[in-house]
């Protein structure tokens, strides 16, 4: 049907071995890993929100955010362990620490974050050891932003073109997506008179995410999986939901109903972003053209341009 959307870039010609993939399909399971990306972002940004709420005297916001931080970390840990081929060996993650492995670094962020956020939430709910609880909460808030963003390094530090070539933008996409999720959840569950910071956090996150995601879409062939098929649809849902939630926040942030609806929409957008990014990577590994065509172009540049072709890290 010629009325359907037309490809802006002509299909590149390239050779392959019977059209088979060059890269292995990531073995990370759906929904475990994209769900973990979402929960890590939610938990990390919620820890920041909780500490701000504690400092500025917003108990209802503090409680929701502390529980979100602890719950997100616990749920994320379960998803991560469940994803392992040998779950009973999950403690091997803490056997060594390697800066070249974001999963190793991330384990050393997630483990203390989970413990601290859990302690802060337990103290908040039970009222036991309030000062230690606050201290634990402050520790979780310090580890929260790295927890929300290291997952971008996790996917970017692979040979998968759609992930690797987006390694400058993905951390900002994930930071914005985490802020949206944390702000959105608090908007749903906290009375509007205390939810002002949650609204502003979600709005700020939305702006950061949209800008960073736009940067990825400009990358031509390697970014194609973010724009086509199922991941393309998920990314479109994310963009639309983010914009709609942001508009609802600005217009009706102080209406309880509208605020809750906007919050739920932010959460939907954050989930869609994580699943979209994850599935774009799977698609990118499946089709050899995403490996062959850019690498051939790089080789051609090297041959013509000599040493100048080495791209800066």
């Amino acid at each position, binding site marked *: 049907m010629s009325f359907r959307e037309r490809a802006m870039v002509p299909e590149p010609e390239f050779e392959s071995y019977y059209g088979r993939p*060059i890269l292995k399909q990531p073995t990370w399971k759906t929904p475990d890993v994209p769900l973990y990306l979402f929960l890590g972002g939610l938990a990390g940004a919620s820890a920041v929100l909780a500490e701000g709420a504690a400092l500025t005297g917003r108990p209802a916001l503090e409680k929701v955010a502390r529980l979100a931080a602890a719950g997100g970390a616990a749920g994320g840990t379960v998803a991560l362990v469940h994803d392992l081929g040998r779950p009973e060996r999950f403690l091997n993650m803490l056997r060594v620490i390697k800066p070249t492995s974001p999963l190793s670094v991330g384990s050393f962020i997630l483990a203390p974050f989970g413990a601290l956020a859990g302690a802060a939430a337990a103290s908040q709910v039970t009222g036991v050891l309030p000062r230690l609880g606050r201290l634990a909460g402050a520790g979780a808030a310090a580890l929260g932003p790295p927890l929300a963003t290291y997952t971008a390094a996790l996917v970017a530090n692979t*040979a998968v073109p759609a992930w690797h070539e987006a390694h400058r933008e993905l951390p900002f996409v994930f930071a914005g997506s985490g802020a949206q999720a944390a702000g959105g959840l608090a908007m749903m569950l906290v009375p509007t008179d205390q939810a002002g910071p949650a609204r502003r956090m979600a709005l700020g996150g939305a702006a950061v995410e949209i800008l960073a995601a736009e940067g990825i879409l400009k990358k031509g062939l390697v970014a194609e999986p973010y724009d086509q098929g199922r991941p393309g649809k998920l990314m479109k849902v994310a963009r639309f939901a983010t914009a709609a939630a942001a508009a609802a926040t600005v217009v009706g942030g102080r209406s309880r109903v509208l605020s809750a609806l906007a919050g739920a929409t932010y959460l939907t957008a954050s989930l869609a972003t994580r699943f979209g990014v994850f599935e774009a990577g799977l698609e990118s590994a499946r089709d050899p053209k995403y490996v062959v065509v850019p690498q051939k172009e790089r080789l051609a540049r090297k041959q013509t341009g000599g040493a100048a072709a080495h791209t800066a*890290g």
Partner: protein
Amino acid sequence: MSTPVESSLWGRLDDPAADAGYADHPKRKGFFTDTSVCIGCKACEVACKEWNQVPDDGFLLTGMSYDNSQQLGASTWRHVAFVEKPIDVPAPVDLGMPTIGSEDQGAVSGDAGVRWLMSSDVCKHCTHAACLDVCPTGALFRTEFGTVVVQPDVCNGCGYCVPACPYGVIDLRKEDGRAFKCTLCYDRLKDDQTPACAQACPTESIQFGDLDELHERADRRLAELHEKGVDVARLYGRDPEDGVGGDGAFFLLLDEPEVYGLPPDPVVTTRDIGSIWKHVGAAAGALVAVGVASFLGRRR
């Protein structure tokens, strides 16, 4: 100037075993697979399976060629690729000689315009191995021979090595949960033995030895082929300055790498790890800024 830390991640590195901390170690071992003499017998695949007790990888007939093992994987550590490519053969000039029968045999069989390429693929044992770099448990390690091996008693099946490999070599074994790949017969090397595949290869397409010597041998073979007019011959994974610092297992190919299912210009992902962490740090900072800004201003 590159510092030692940088050279561990990227660029030329002549002694990966020393870089990994072996003070005293044997010379780097490797494979030179000369595909110009490969006959596609798959003795390497069988010998590897037998020696390493690798389970079956499915009894599938692909129908696309004589290649039924299809790709390297957790249970396929040597994989023989069969490339059938149509080529233009100039029509024979009719010399007016008497013939038997009416048609050219080649034309009848349909084989006249097809070129066959066979190549035994294997783990490249990269100088800068992404699988090893990203492994969070330390299950993947550099041996004293400069090769890259998984320790099955440590691997917890996180699967990070799988999308990290730029060649698509390593994979998780589903029924087992852990990652497996070629060990370059680590057990045999320790006993001064040749790896099973090289031992079984009847044409010496798979050559095993000290990597520096294999480089020399490959260069000689390439020059010889070029002299004979085989201009398409090229070495793949030989260059110690390439994106993975050169391969421990390298190849002589007769076509573009992608025709054999190999990436044309692989780069170890951890070359960019500095940039990746820098951007993660900046994004974490941005999240802090968004958080702080959310609590500033109006109090409601």
